[in-house]
């Protein structure tokens, strides 16, 4: 069974037809990379998966997105519950102006959890999962802004993990980071897929190659090609994909 199924998704921003009949099925415990030039619709598609586009005025969505067998755009779907299941990490690290500990505990607290021991246990587990524990264990009460960019991004991933989602969406999670921090996040993505289903938007094609099992190439709102990353990067079936990944686009 697929973790995420997208069936003939159309999305309009006003008159602009931003996604044109997207069909993608994503298996559990895999990493799927969405690639394509700016404005191709990849981030729009990503944001559909936890209904982030709901917040934008004049958006019309057609089609179905089914997560764990349920259409997340059906009436009566609780968006808060959905977002507990589908965590998100953004392009720029965006820690809250709080301590390191409270950043990770935040999601638990807003979900009504007050058991101190449980919160402490979840915070430590999540920070360990992102391989940040050794670096921050002695300064959990310090502001998250004291961390480096790479550490902040790992903290944001820990914050997403704390509420135990099963899907993590990442929108260019390393584009603001140096190569070493980027490598750490990529290794983390590789580790995390054992427990989570990950969908990542990236402008860095080598990153898609390194971290993902499947790659989807978007262009002008259409899904041009979707397949195993190995196949996309060694023998893409569509000429446009080949031109894009070899840098001969346009």
């Amino acid at each position, binding site marked *: 069974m697929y973790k995420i199924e997208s069936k003939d998704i159309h999305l309009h921003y006003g008159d602009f037809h931003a996604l044109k009949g997207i069909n993608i099925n994503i298996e559990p415990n895999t990493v799927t990379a969405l690639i394509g030039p700016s404005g191709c619709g990849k981030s729009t598609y990503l944001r559909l998966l936890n209904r982030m586009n709901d917040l934008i005025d004049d958006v019309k969505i057609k089609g179905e997105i089914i997560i764990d067998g349920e259409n997340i755009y059906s009436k009566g779907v609780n968006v808060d519950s959905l977002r507990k299941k589908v965590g998100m990490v953004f392009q720029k690290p965006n820690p809250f102006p709080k301590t390191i500990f409270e950043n990770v505990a935040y999601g638990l607290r807003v979900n009504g959890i007050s058991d101190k021991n449980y919160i402490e246990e979840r915070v430590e587990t999540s920070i360990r999962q992102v391989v940040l524990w050794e670096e921050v264990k002695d300064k959990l009460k310090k502001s998250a802004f004291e961390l480096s960019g790479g550490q902040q991004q790992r903290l944001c991933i820990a914050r997403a993990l704390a509420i135990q989602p099963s899907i993590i969406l990442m929108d260019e999670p390393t584009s603001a980071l140096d190569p070493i921090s980027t490598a750490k996040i990529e*290794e983390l993505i*590789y580790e995390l897929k054992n427990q989570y289903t990950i969908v990542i938007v990236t402008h860095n094609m*080598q990153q898609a190659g*390194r971290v993902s099992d499947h790659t989807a190439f978007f262009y002008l709102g259409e899904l041009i090609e979707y397949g195993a*990353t*190995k196949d996309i990067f*060694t023998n893409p079936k569509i000429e446009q994909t080949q031109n894009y990944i070899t840098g001969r686009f346009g």
Partner: protein
Amino acid sequence: MSHLDTELQILKSETIEMWTLVNSQLAKGKQSLLTLDKDLAREVIMTEKRVNANELKLDRDCENIFALFTPVAIDLRFVLAVLKINSNLERTGDIAEGIAKFVLHVDDQFDRNLLQITRVIEMYEAANNMMKDVLQAFEHEDTALARKVFQMDELLDEINLKANTVIADYIRSNSENIEAALYVLSIIRKLERVGDQTKNMAEELIFYIEAKVLKHRTRKEKEKEA
């Protein structure tokens, strides 16, 4: 261990597996030649398909690593080396098969004295030992051991050089055995190629570990580079 390290480790294990298979093909080829065991020769010929399948798999894995991980520095040299070693191994596998085919076709009247006077078995043993040593050098990243084969190869060259005279003399006095004698000469030529392939693999190993290019150098130059 990083994702790339894991992939490189898998590539190394697959290369060792391919290498071990080719060494076993050579060893069985030698045994079949020594005892003229046609069943064993058939086994070598059948197993050649596995060598070919392994070659394709390793090629594909190298291609995937280039495409997906864009390796650099020692990682890049490692994948490049494996790609070439793979090709050398496949050709060595072909040679083992070629020798097995000879054993299959030879008749019962074959003059075993030919094996003795040409030193072909001694040569075969030396070639197999070279292959084993370079495999061990590959497994343990031991370039000193890899360098030893440059000297070992001299024995193969010596036997190969003398083979023409030995075979010519033999033919002059055993004209009824010309065909068998020429076959043995062709085996000697093949074994000389095994020596060359093995040296190439040793050079690839040194290239990947030390970033030194030893191709087209004399043995003395190679030793100086150490």
